[in-house]
């Protein structure tokens, strides 16, 4: 989880990613951030997030994103 929090904080140091749960709905993460996260997840976790998983529910919080990474890694 810490690895993911580091990736997210690198994009928006001012946001508390441990508690924020509306990253997409509140417009904190934009399309550029998503592109960056998907590529960082690929390089750091060796997990490819497929296009159909790029939906607000999976990116609204660090917890949701971590769950997605874990699920994709285990599948």
């Amino acid at each position: 989880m810490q690895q993911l929090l580091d990736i997210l904080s690198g994009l928006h140091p001012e946001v508390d990613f441990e508690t924020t749960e509306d990253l997409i709905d509140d417009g904190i993460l934009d399309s550029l951030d998503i592109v960056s996260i998907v590529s960082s997840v690929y390089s750091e976790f060796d997990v490819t997030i497929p296009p159909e998983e790029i939906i607000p529910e999976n990116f609204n919080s660090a917890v949701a994103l971590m769950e997605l990474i874990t699920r994709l890694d285990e599948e």
Partner: protein
Amino acid sequence: MSFTSYTFIAFLGVMLLAYFLTYGKRQWITLLVGSYIFYAFAGLDCLAFILITTLSSYLVSRLLGRAIGRERAFLEANKETLDKAQRKEYKARSKKKRFRILLCGLFFNFGILAVLKYSAFAVRNVNSIIGLFGGKGFDVPSLLLPLGISFYTFQTMGYLIDVYRGKVAPERNIAKLALFVSFFPQLVQGPISLYSELAPSLYEPHKFDLKKFSFGMQRVIWGYFKKLVIADRVLIAMNTMLDAPEQYGGAYVLLLIVLYSVQIYADFTGGIDITIGIAESMGIKLAENFDRPFSSRSTKEYWRRWHITMGRWFREYIFVPIATVKPMLKLNNFCKNRIGVKAASKVVAYTASIVTWFVTGIWHGAAWNFIVWGLLNCLIIMVSESLEPLYKKFHARFPKLAGNRFYGGFCATRTFLLMGLIRSLDCYRNVATTFRMWGSMLTFRGIGEILGGGILRLGLDLTDIVIILCGIAVMYAVSKISAKTDVRESLYERPVLSAILTCALLICVIMIGNYGIGYDASQFIYDQF
């Protein structure tokens, strides 16, 4: 069969009657038969093309479904014996196979669209190049362009991609898939529906429901009002200016930009109101295509509110796959260490945006003006995104501006004019002419002439202008109210007022719709795409 023809009104009456009379498990068959009758009016040749798309998509989706089923069964059967790496490897191999099947379907169907819609454009461009070297060139093919082919091809290919992604199960009944491809109200100008959101509502039986029926019909009449009373009337003035563009330079260009914005809004949203209204009257829910686009404060916001289903299609099936494909992820990681995280993401996102907007442009039409229009939209979005840090600094300096109504109005007007300006490429249909006219607009000559009565020499009389202005005021009021509340739900509580307003709207359509001797309402703008 245009929505504005008497034949269509008669067809719709019979269709609705037949639909409710055949209530039951097989009610959807009535819709399928009706949709094919509707499409047959466009010509039997067109029917052949829609049948080919349906049949090929059915076969490909079934093959995809079978491949997914086999993959799941194998993984389940070997759950205990396969380790993580083996499972991943098997899945990657299966996905590759599935992708090849999908590509066959996409190439075949987009190939048909490309040949029919773009071969003449391609040959003309090749001929221009050959001409530079003194060559003769090839004969420009004149091929049939089936009605609504861009819409039904994109909608059906979206379905194929969703099956490939495992988001929806392939439809087992080819007749049901045929209905999804050909559902008549949305066939010619969208909205472009997702299978997952339209199919359940399309196939389930719907009893006659007075509330849904009256809501649907109210929306249909509202659509006709926008199209026949406003859009077709504005078109007269536009056509006068477009018949001789050089005569109408200066301030007339600005007038044209504003008029075209009104016309395309009334025409396209009117057409979509008719489409959604017809479906609603039958109890079928279609996706909304507009969300008060002219109140957008930025180009990005505008594109989230205008032609929503098309934007969603391009985002989900073109932008996201390109931006997240492995070579792009590697490119992003490669750039990160050299130019920084944000800049690296921009390289990837902007590359995907340029491709997406190029395709969006050419989807609208096989002509350079559409391609330039798409790329200009992309350029504006990229520039505003790059200037985002400056905007943030500006707003931090003047925090009260964000909630200020006048500033909001200024931003909305700026977006309206900017979008109108690049949309005028669509009017002049020629890139060089459009750029020349933009240059001429900067002189602002002719303002006095327009205000001094020039506007009355564009084919419209004073009554027409009053009707247009009143129509715009009504559209604006409805748009404002609908931002806060559901207009029809509010009226439902007041049945007398609702009946009076609906009748008034209908009378307006009948009495002041833009008919003439030998009436033939102009085609809806998006029919031609």
